């Protein structure tokens, strides 16, 4: 596995408050990596340090095994938590301006712009000013400006904030397209349900410290208790005697099985379907949220407060 981005023992304090405390993580090349945690966990600070917007107090940050150079900025697409653009500029102007700042050739920007505007259903607005767009349209425009220069690393802070469900789908599909191009994608969110559907790898952080990290499936199998739900027709009383089934809660045509760690769910399915008609058989993975609560021992994921948006 190719380590694209590697953070080692990164620390950052504001006055006495430790925003990021001894954080280490590895983002593999071409993966979708989610930094997940409640507000105030240190996600934005971590991302700003990766972007070299702020400097860590200590620790090492490597891109492709090297210290990031100024040139590295050109290969990153960055969407900060708080979105905004120059309101008075025309769409084509601001797309060109921000691509220019990335050192992306003007001709390539021009040739890609229409395609992107089309993809985001903004083609009719190319010669309009940013302020004439609705909030949702501005969000989509900002995605164009984040991605048009074909970055090799995309960093999105609070990816889902302010997006309506339609745009969330649109953005997910675009990110999956980017991943197919071989782009590495790093994003932060506190919306765990969304992260679960998108990430290959995750890092859960809380209070500036890493709670756990790794491949999403591994994290789930490692920390989860496996549960199976079955809808069926027939007498399912034999099921509780199948090896590997620890406990059963049952209704008339519905059963929920709690499995032991080494149980083989596929073997259980075969045994069940031999004797009863199975309408639905679902392996219930534990939610990230539940893992987070269990591992970090956090009670609440309350709304944000305080003076800095997210340190």
């Amino acid at each position, binding site marked *: 596995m190719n380590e694209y981005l590697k953070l080692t023992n990164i620390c950052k304090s504001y006055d006495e408050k430790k925003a990021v405390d001894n954080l280490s993580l590895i983002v593999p090349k071409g993966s979708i990596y989610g930094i997940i945690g409640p507000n105030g966990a240190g996600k934005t600070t971590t991302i*700003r340090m990766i972007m070299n917007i702020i400097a860590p107090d200590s620790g090492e940050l490597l891109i492709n095994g090297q210290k990031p150079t100024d040139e590295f900025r050109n290969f*990153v697409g960055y969407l900060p938590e*708080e979105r*905004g653009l120059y*309101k008075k500029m025309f769409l084509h102007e601001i797309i060109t301006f*921000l691509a220019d*700042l990335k050192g992306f050739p003007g001709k390539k920007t021009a040739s890609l712009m229409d395609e992107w505007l089309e993809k985001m259903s903004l083609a009719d607005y190319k010669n309009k000013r940013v302020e004439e767009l609705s909030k949702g349209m501005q969000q989509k425009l900002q995605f164009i400006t984040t991605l048009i220069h074909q970055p090799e690393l995309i960093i999105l802070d609070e990816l889902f904030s302010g997006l309506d469900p339609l745009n969330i789908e649109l953005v997910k599909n675009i990110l999956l397209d980017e991943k197919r191009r071989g782009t590495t994608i790093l994003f932060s969110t506190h919306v765990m349900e969304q992260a679960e559907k998108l990430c290959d790898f995750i890092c859960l952080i809380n209070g500036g410290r890493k709670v756990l990290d790794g491949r999403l499936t591994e994290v789930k199998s490692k920390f989860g208790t496996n549960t199976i739900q079955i809808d069926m027709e027939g007498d399912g009383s034999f099921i509780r005697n199948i090896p590997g089934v620890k406990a059963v809660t049952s209704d008339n045509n519905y059963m929920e099985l709690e499995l032991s760690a080494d149980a083989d769910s596929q073997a259980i399915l075969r045994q069940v379907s031999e004797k009863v008609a199975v309408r639905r058989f679902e392996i219930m993975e534990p939610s990230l949220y539940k893992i987070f609560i269990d591992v970090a021992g956090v009670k609440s994921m309350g709304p944000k407060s305080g003076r800095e948006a997210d340190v």
Partner: protein
Amino acid sequence: MSKMWIIIKREYAQVVKKKSFLVGIILTPLFMVGITVLPAMLATKKAADTEKIAIIDLSDNNIGNKFRESLAQYKLDNDDPAYMVTEIHTINPSDSLQLIQRREELDSLIRDKELKSYFVINSRADESDSIVLVAKSFGLRANSRFERELSYILSGIRLEKSDVNLAIDSVLKLTRNIEITHLAPGGRERDFFSMYLGGIIFVMIIFMTIIGYGQVLMRSIIEEKNSRIIEVIISSVSPFQLMAGKVIGLGLANLTQIGIWIIFGMIIYNFRGNFDISPQITATIFNPVFLIYFLLYLLIGYIMYSTLFALIGSIVNTDKEAQNFIFPITMTLILPVMIAMYIIQEPDSTIAITLSLIPIFTPTMMVLRMNYIGIESFSLANPMIVEATLGLILTALTTLFIIWATARIFRIGILMYGKRPTLPEIIKWMRYR
């Protein structure tokens, strides 16, 4: 560097493309003329019409008639007499009733604008110097003429009464008042009007440039902070590149504006026709040594102050919060204008020199002083050249320090939203890595 150029281009375009840029080009000179030239011109302008004057003469030496004759020498531009004495009432000083009646008549004539003013020449005016002028308003120029002519007449009367054994006319010639011509070392002719005007115009250019463009810079940073685009920008360029790009971009827009003024000024100057431009003003404006220093001070003053405005923009969240910080900056800039009268009289005083060497005051104060003291060549024998150069060096060093400090605060400030930071917090930011 090329990224900074992209910032510069955008900032420049954003200002120059706006309608307000065009409006500023037209309105700013009008405003400057309005607050500098007009009052001065009004105070010294020649009257457009013949002033009608009446005289009540209580003396027995025929002063009224002599005064009328002496006023005949003053002409308007079109050769009409400047003053016309409509009536001379010779009244016996003991007839106070008639005096009161006459004065009431003349007062009402003035109110009806039939008459500009009237004199009351008291009895034995030559001994008491007691002459009253009644008018709604007094012109500086007319007043000095009246005083001169009346002094002359009264001196003549006093001489006649004395035992001087000389032809009175020739004695009077000896005692004639003069108007002093003011010359600067090196022979440049100056008068109060052009000295004041010259100095204030140049200070106003610096002042308006800095305040105008400084606030544009500050607002654009506040706007970028509020719209949060600033974070996108500094993911591509360093905060310092952003700040410097903005300062330079707006500076170039400013130069464009001044360039347009210069071109128009030259066109107007070439087509001025018969309009008389004081040679003293021309001499000031076309003094290359002064202009070089002026442009250097304009440049360094702009950089120093606009960096300060960038600093303010980075630590506040709203225009309203910024106002508290702008006030002291405005005061430091306007100080030379407020004390210009003193500087004109004492441009070499310790206070003037000291103030002009305090970097924050230097750009405006030094320009003001250079104008009054006069610099004709780069000779170090002229202490003004030494001081102007020293001021330039001190200001440049201070500006470098301000840029360094601002860059350190700026990079943190633009990411901080919410409560306005306190001074200790800002100092802490400077120490962050």
